[in-house]
Each structure stands twice: as structure tokens, then as C-alpha cells.
């Protein structure tokens, strides 16, 4: 079976070389293609313009709308991308398939300011090699409407006081990890999935909707469809600061789900140096301060950049570095875990709908 697989891959590689080499040749020598979520920092028009003026490197963007899709795009388009954003919990998957190369900090001067808590994370240190330059980090916890009760525990999601006023995140891994914390389990290795299922099912009378994007969250919150929600830290800062929504981000006593996004040089990139130059610019304090204050961003992995934010800046206040010590970073999951979590979440959703 393994043999067939290998020849299969050879055919895939040949097909890719024949079919996809052309656009690469047609491009200017100093152009890089970045694969990221749309509207997530790297494609800010002012930033790209400043970077191109500074270095002469052109930046083209392509987007993904889910992490598996990002991996699929990397696998089916070898040689097309130079820089990719990967959630650190997915780095090991990308490394296992040789989709990205090790991080070369020697060509990223700004890496000196990176927070050691993030640099040393097991998520990016695989078999003694460091992959992916930590870019930003954030938390998933609760967001409550200002003026109401501010919850101190995830148990508020099931509190009868909140009937019909709660929104959950439509993401299996997030919801399982969060309720694992609530039921006193290791969020990266929950063992009692039945307890998590039951707890999630008990939220049913409270659940109004499950959001899958910040935009959806903002519009529903603005229309007063819910008062309490599972939400992202950086997004809550944006919702309050940019969209002027009365929202308060809360890390309950069980702790938050901490996540970290990394920028990686893609295997087979024709311009790895240009890619690293772009990554360096992305953790530059100058870029970050403008991004965070004008547009709204998660916390920079570069503590020097965080220190340059005004002391009363909301992003800075929410992302207290203490949480990096007290909460756990979401770790890589095995395929079996992901499948189990997804089936669990499908079952819960079917229960909500019934």
C-alpha cells in the first residue's frame, strides 16, 4: 500500500510541475504569494504598500476559509505560495507533510523581541527544530454585553438566567476544549467525552445561535440577538473599538483557550529570503502598532511591539501576558481526536436542532 502511495505522489508532483509551473515563471522575480485568512493583517493595503516601497518586493494574496482548506491548498499547489499563516496547533501537521520549512530566525531581526513563552511552545518545536515564526496570539473565552452580569465561569453558558441569550462558536475543537475546562479536564487531552457531551447538551435552552465568523458575531450582537457568547479576545477588542459595540471580554476562573498563529515559509518557495523579510515586517513594532490601533488586532507575539502600544490600549489591556502563564496553549491534536470531537459536536448540534 505504501508503495502505491509513493508512486501516486510522484504522479501528483509531475502533474503539478507540468500544470502549475507556468504562473510561477510568469511572475516577477521579487514577488511573493501569501496564503492567509482574508483581512487578517498581512493584506492591509497600507502595510503591503509600505513593505513594497521599502524592499521592492511585490505581495500577492490568496485566502483560505478553514484550516483544512489551507493545508489542501498547500498540498495541491506546490511552488505557488511563499508565506502561509498556520495556527500553531496545526504546525506539526504541516511539518509532517513537509509543507513548510524550519524557521530561520537569523534572517528575522525582529525575532529578538518574541515572547519566550511562545517561542518555546511545544507546538512549534518539533523534534528539536523550531518551525513557524510566532506572529500573534489571542484567547478564546467569554464576551458579555456591558451592563449585564459579568460571568466568572463558563457555567454561565448554561445558567437559566440566560435562556435564549447565548451564542456558541460553531467550532468543534473550541467547544470541546472549553467545556473540558468547565468539567475540570485537560483541554488538550479530554478523556471523559461523555461528560462534555452531556454538559454541552444541557446548554440547549440557552442557545440562540452558533456563529462562525467575527462578522456574523458583530451583526448578530448589534441586532441584540444574544448577550453572552464564546468569543475571541482580539475580535472583542475590534468589536468594541471599531464597531463601538458594548462588549466586555471575560476570562473566567477556569482560564482561557490560548492560541498562537505563526507565519511560515512554504517548502519550495522560490524566494525564501523575500518571504522571511515579509515575516520580519509582520512582527515589526511599527507595523503592529498601526495595525492594532487603526484596524484592531490580536496580541503581537513580539513583546517589544506590545510595549509600544499606549498604556490604555484595549488590545494591550485584554492580552495581559500573565494569561500566557496561567492558561494553556491549544496543542496539536491527533486525527482520531479531531474526528471524535467533530462527531461529538455534530451530535450536540443535532440535539440542539431537534
Amino acid at each position, binding site marked *: 500500500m505504501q508503495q502505491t502511495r509513493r508512486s501516486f505522489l510522484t504522479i501528483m508532483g509531475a502533474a*503539478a510541475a507540468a*500544470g502549475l509551473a507556468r504562473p510561477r515563471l510568469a511572475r516577477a522575480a521579487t514577488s511573493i504569494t501569501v496564503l492567509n485568512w*482574508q*483581512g487578517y493583517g498581512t493584506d492591509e493595503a497600507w502595510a503591503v504598500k509600505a513593505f513594497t516601497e521599502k524592499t521592492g518586493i511585490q505581495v500577492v494574496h490568496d485566502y483560505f476559509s478553514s484550516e483544512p482548506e489551507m493545508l489542501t491548498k498547500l498540498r495541491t*499547489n506546490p511552488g505557488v505560495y511563499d508565506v502561509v499563516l498556520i495556527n500553531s496547533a496545526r504546525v506539526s501537521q504541516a511539518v509532517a507533510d513537509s509543507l513548510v520549512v524550519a524557521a530561520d530566525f537569523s534572517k528575522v531581526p525582529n525575532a529578538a523581541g518574541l515572547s519566550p513563552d511562545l517561542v518555546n511552545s511545544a507546538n512549534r518545536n518539533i523534534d528539536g527544530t523550531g518551525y513557524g515564526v510566532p506572529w500573534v496570539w489571542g484567547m478564546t473565552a467569554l464576551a458579555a454585553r456591558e451592563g449585564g452580569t459579568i460571568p466568572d465561569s463558563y457555567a454561565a453558558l448554561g445558567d437559566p438566567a440566560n435562556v435564549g441569550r447565548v451564542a456558541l462558536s460553531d467550532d468543534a475543537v473550541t467547544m470541546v476544549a472549553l467545556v473540558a475546562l468547565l468539567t475540570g479536564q485537560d483541554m488538550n487531552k479530554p478523556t471523559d467525552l461523555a461528560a462534555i457531551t452531556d454538559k454541552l447538551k444541557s446548554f440547549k435552552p440557552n442557545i440562540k445561535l452558533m456563529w462562525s465568523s*467575527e462578522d*456574523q458575531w458583530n451583526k448578530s450582537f*448589534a441586532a441584540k440577538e444574544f448577550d453572552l457568547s464564546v468569543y475571541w479576545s482580539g475580535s472583542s477588542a475590534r468589536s468594541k473599538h471599531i*464597531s463601538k459595540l458594548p462588549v466586555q471580554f471575560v476570562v473566567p476562573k477556569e482560564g482561557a483557550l490560548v492560541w498562537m498563529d505563526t507565519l511560515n515559509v512554504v517548502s519550495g518557495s522560490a524566494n525564501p529570503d523575500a518571504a522571511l523579510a515579509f515575516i520580519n515586517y509582520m512582527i515589526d513594532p511599527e507595523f503592529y502598532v498601526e495595525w492594532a490601533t487603526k484596524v484592531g488586532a490580536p496580541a503581537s507575539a513580539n513583546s517589544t511591539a506590545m510595549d509600544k502600544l499606549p498604556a490604555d490600549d484595549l488590545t494591550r489591556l485584554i492580552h495581559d501576558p500573565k494569561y500566557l502563564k496561567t492558561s494553556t496553549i491549544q496543542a496539536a491534536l491527533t486525527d482520531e481526536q479531531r474526528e471524535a470531537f467533530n462527531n461529538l459536536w455534530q451530535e450536540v448540534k443535532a440535539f440542539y436542532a431537534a
Partner: protein
Amino acid sequence: MKIAARFYIAAILAFLYLPILVMMAMGFNESPLYELPFSFSTRWYQALAGNAPLVNSGINSIWIAVATSIIATVLGTMASVALSRRTFRGKTLLQLMLLPPIAIPWLITGTAMLVFFFYSGIGRGLHALLIGHVALAIPYVVLVVGTGFQTVRADLEEAAMSLGSTPVHAFFSITLPLLYPSILGAALFAFAVSLDQFVISYFLATPGFSTLPVQIYSAIRKGFTPEINAISTILLVGSMAVIVIFALFAKPGGVSDKR
């Protein structure tokens, strides 16, 4: 009776256009979060004027939809002729084969195309995009034109042929004019299918090339602003103007003639 019928048509149109009017109205609403109460503003139209990627993606979408609807209508009508007017073994199977492209969600078909086009070396790009769009539009054309065929009597054609007309001539002079409303309807559907097609464009376009649905769906995460409403409104009003002018001034087809 006629008055009730006209009233009913008006009610159906009101239902169909209700969300469209909301869409248009929200393009002129100040709030980026689509909040009510309504407060008039043209800021989204001004923003749109400066948003070259969105405008370009709209133009790309129209070109692809035009090409798709022409190719799919021609091919689909040809197939429909064979399926409706010829007898051969395996016909039912061929008709059933039109169902999978409609029944399997586009997301799966799109993913399958991405994988298969990659393995087979077709790759990504405009050509791949057109292959996918046309393929998804064809079943709609065949079904709609096929419905038309069931109402056009075959004996007219045969009569013409018995009077010395060739089959091709009989088709073009007798059947085609009678089929005009179904073919027009099919072409409009094919256009709509392509214009709304997101998954295939998303998977098969090369980086930097984008269509309007791709812009809209990708914007979900970032948050789509009423600029989307503005460009949708412009597209709809524009196509409405073109079609109404065409319908009012073009030579009337067979549709209004009594058969």
C-alpha cells in the same frame, strides 16, 4: 378573474423582490453593521468607487457568466434535442446522469474538481473555472429546454420534412422559434448559476484572480460591508436595464404569437 390573477402576480413579485429591496436599501444605510434605524448615506457607493478589487471581481463574474451561459445553452440544447427527439438505448440513464451535478452539493463537486484537476494536470486558472461553471450549468439547461420540447409537437417538424425540408432546416425554422422561451429561460438560469457560483471559482481560480461571490464569501470572516450591497445593486439594476430594453425593443420572438 383576470384582476385576481394580476393581483396574484403582483403579490409573487412583491415576495420575490422583498429581500432585494432590503438589499438595495441597506446599500444606502450608514451603519457598517446593517443596524436599524435607517440613516441615509452614499458612503458605501463612494467606498466602492475606490475598491478596485471588488469592482474588478464583479466584471470578471459577468464575463464568466456570459461565456458560461452561451456555451452551456448551446451544448445543453443540443443534448436536449437528442434526449427529446431521438430514441436510443440508455436514454433514461443519460437523463438520470443529469441529477448528480445538481444533487451533490457544490462544495463536494468543487472539492472533487480541485483534486481531480490537480491529478489530471488541468490545473487551476480561467480555463478550469470555465470548465467547472459550464458543467454545473448544463443540467439546468437540458432540463429546462427538455420541458419545452415536451410541449412542442414533433409532428410539426415531421410535416415540414415530409414537405421536403431537411431535418436541420426543419429544426431551425420550426422547432427553434417555438422553443425560444425555454432556451431564453435556460440561458438566464445558466447565467444565474454561474454568477452565484462560489465554490468552484474559489478553488480553481489562480491567486489574484477573483469573482464577486469569492469576494463576498471570503469577506465573511473580515466582515462584509454594505459595499457588497452597493455592487450587487449596481449589477442587478444594470442587468435589469439591459434586459428590459432588450425585451421592449428587440424583434418579438415566437413567445407572444399564438400557436
